[in-house]
């Protein structure tokens, strides 16, 4: 078993190292910016894999916490912009247009770097913790949890669009300063930003791996397969689910902060239904029960999409192919490419690991019945 763990850590390490070393081969600032965006989607996929793959919480609103993190970073960078883009006393330009005379109180603490960086992770995490406590405390599961996360995302999105004078409304926050840390400036179109995102990705991946490998991770997987039984053993199921929900939100918020740095703006589309559902696709393609699989699934899908986006007609057809691919994967590969891959390995080396994986393979899926039982 320990051999398997160290093999896993090794694989994860090799992939992260390959990602970190990429700028040695690629020297195009534009391409690096594009790749940084793919890495951010990889982080989002890790976040969803944690809650969906490991705890069985299908979060259709993963983009909510991503957007919150992204807005925290954007508010901080907006306040840092050079005075041409701001009103008197450094008031952001869109506030001047909306006749706001004084910096609103939620904006004030974002002058501080430390506060902004902490907020980008803690605000999404607290938001998710509250929502998780609200849902799981009431034993809302499965489809209903999915619908609640979706509805909450639409609500947050509508509020951001509506409160134009505080959030920039439909246009989002644009004209941001470049991110600066310890006197070093991260240009969105440079290797430095790419390294920053790649390090963020590595941290997220290994932290998540640590969670799934811990006792908590084991209990979460038990909750996914047989929630009732875990409850009868005396575990506080709601607490565990809330924890993983908040942890996944923290990673999504972390990813959101990087996304603002890379894109140089934040917009309400970051909290949109299309993005949320794309995350679900990435994770389903890669394999929801493997952090690395989910991440690579995101890199693969966004990468192909990005390569085809040069031509308009290709992109249109790509969306169609994507939809078809997704349906096929749901039908035939419920565990995604990672599941297919490990099944292949098992077939090639049946003696070494068949007993364990077989047992997992055959464990009954949660007997969710919507039809008759209520």
């Amino acid at each position: 078993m320990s051999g398997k763990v160290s093999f896993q850590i090794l694989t994860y390490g090799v992939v992260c190292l390959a990602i970190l070393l990429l700028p040695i081969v690629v020297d195009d600032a534009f391409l690096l910016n594009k790749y940084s965006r793919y890495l951010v989607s990889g982080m989002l996929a890790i976040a969803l894999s944690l809650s969906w793959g490991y705890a069985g919480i299908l979060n259709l609103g993963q983009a909510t916490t991503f957007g919150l993190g992204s807005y925290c970073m954007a508010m901080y960078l907006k306040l840092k912009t050079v005075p041409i883009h701001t009103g008197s006393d450094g008031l952001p330009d869109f506030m001047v247009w909306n006749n706001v005379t004084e910096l609103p109180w939620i904006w004030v603490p974002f002058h501080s770097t430390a506060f902004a960086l902490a907020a980008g992770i803690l605000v999404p995490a607290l938001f998710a913790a509250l929502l998780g406590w609200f849902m799981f405390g009431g034993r809302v599961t499965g489809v209903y949890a999915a619908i609640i996360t979706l509805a909450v995302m639409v609500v947050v999105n509508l509020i951001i669009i509506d409160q134009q004078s505080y959030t920039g409304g439909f246009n989002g926050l644009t004209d941001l300063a470049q991110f600066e840390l310890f006197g070093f400036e991260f240009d969105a179109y440079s290797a430095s930003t790419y390294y920053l995102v790649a390090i963020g990705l590595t941290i997220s991946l290994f932290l998540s791996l640590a969670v799934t490998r811990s006792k908590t991770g084991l209990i979460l997987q038990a909750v996914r397969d047989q929630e009732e039984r875990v409850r009868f053993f005396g575990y506080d199921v709601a607490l565990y689910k809330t924890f993983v929900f908040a942890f996944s939100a923290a990673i999504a918020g972390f990813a959101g902060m990087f996304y603002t740095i890379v894109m140089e703006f934040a917009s309400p589309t970051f909290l949109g239904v299309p993005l949320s559902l794309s995350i679900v696709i990435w994770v389903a393609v890669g394999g929801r029960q493997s952090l690395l699989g989910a991440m690579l699934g995101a890199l693969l899908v966004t990468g192909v999409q990005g390569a085809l986006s040069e031509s308009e007609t290709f992109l249109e057809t790509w969306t169609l192919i994507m939809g078809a691919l997704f349906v096929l994967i749901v039908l035939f590969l419920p565990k995604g490419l990672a599941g297919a891959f490990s099944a292949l390995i098992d077939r090639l080396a049946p003696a070494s690991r068949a007993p364990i994986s077989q047992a997992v393979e055959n464990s009954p899926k949660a007997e969710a019945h919507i039809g008759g039982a209520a």
Partner: protein
Amino acid sequence: MDFIVSQILTGLSLSSILLLVALGLAVIYGVTGVINLAHGEFVMLGAYGAWLLQTQLGLGLIVSLIPIFLLVAALGWVIEVVVIRHLYDRPLDTILATWGLGVMIQQIVRLTAGGELRYVQMPPSLSGSVNILGATDSAYRLFVLGVALAMFCLIWVIYRYTSFGLKLRAITQNSGIASCFGINSALAYRVTFAFGAGVAGLAGALISPLKSVSPEMGTTYVVDAFMVVVLGGVQSLLGTLASSGLLGEISGVLAYYSNDTIAKALVLLAIVIIIRFRPQGLFAPRVRA
């Protein structure tokens, strides 16, 4: 007085659209347990059907309702055979598969009919307005309300008073035992799915003159319709009627006092809270499981 009447009429008009869109979803969800996220796309296809028949063949809207119903129902039949029937024991995966199907349908429409907004003419005989208790309302909106209620009654009668409806009720209560009694539940599911899709197409055709027709139009409807169904209670047709009435009127009133965006946010928030405390819906029937 006429202010109150016109406010109620505005709400009723919103309600009738909600009811039309939600009925198909309620039927599918209630009987098969499938959460059909492609439902909005069925609505969109119905609207495009109306546009196509009107611009290409010069057919009036009312004449085209039946062919549209049949076409979208046929598509629903095919989708059930190809995809859905493999997923009845994996309810969470049906969300994903039907969403993928929705993306495909949307994209096919965009590639063939183009992404620009389309407009459908109202039937000329219904383009006037009617005076009710001092308030005026468009005749077409009243027509839509009438059709929505008629559809509801039709489904109610099928469900309650025909032998097919009896079989459906048996399946929803216990599909295993129903099968033991010789009910072909696979066929019943297929017919239900096709019928629900057809009703969605009909809804799309009926609302097409009121809204602009675009490939993305379905997305908003599927969320709204889903909220109606969940709020009403999954297996309760009357619940769907009541909750669409309730949501329509509330949105109408809230939209009057604040704006559409905030009204929508508040309604969604209320629904979230209701799902949390009453996941079985407001009007859940007592079914022994």
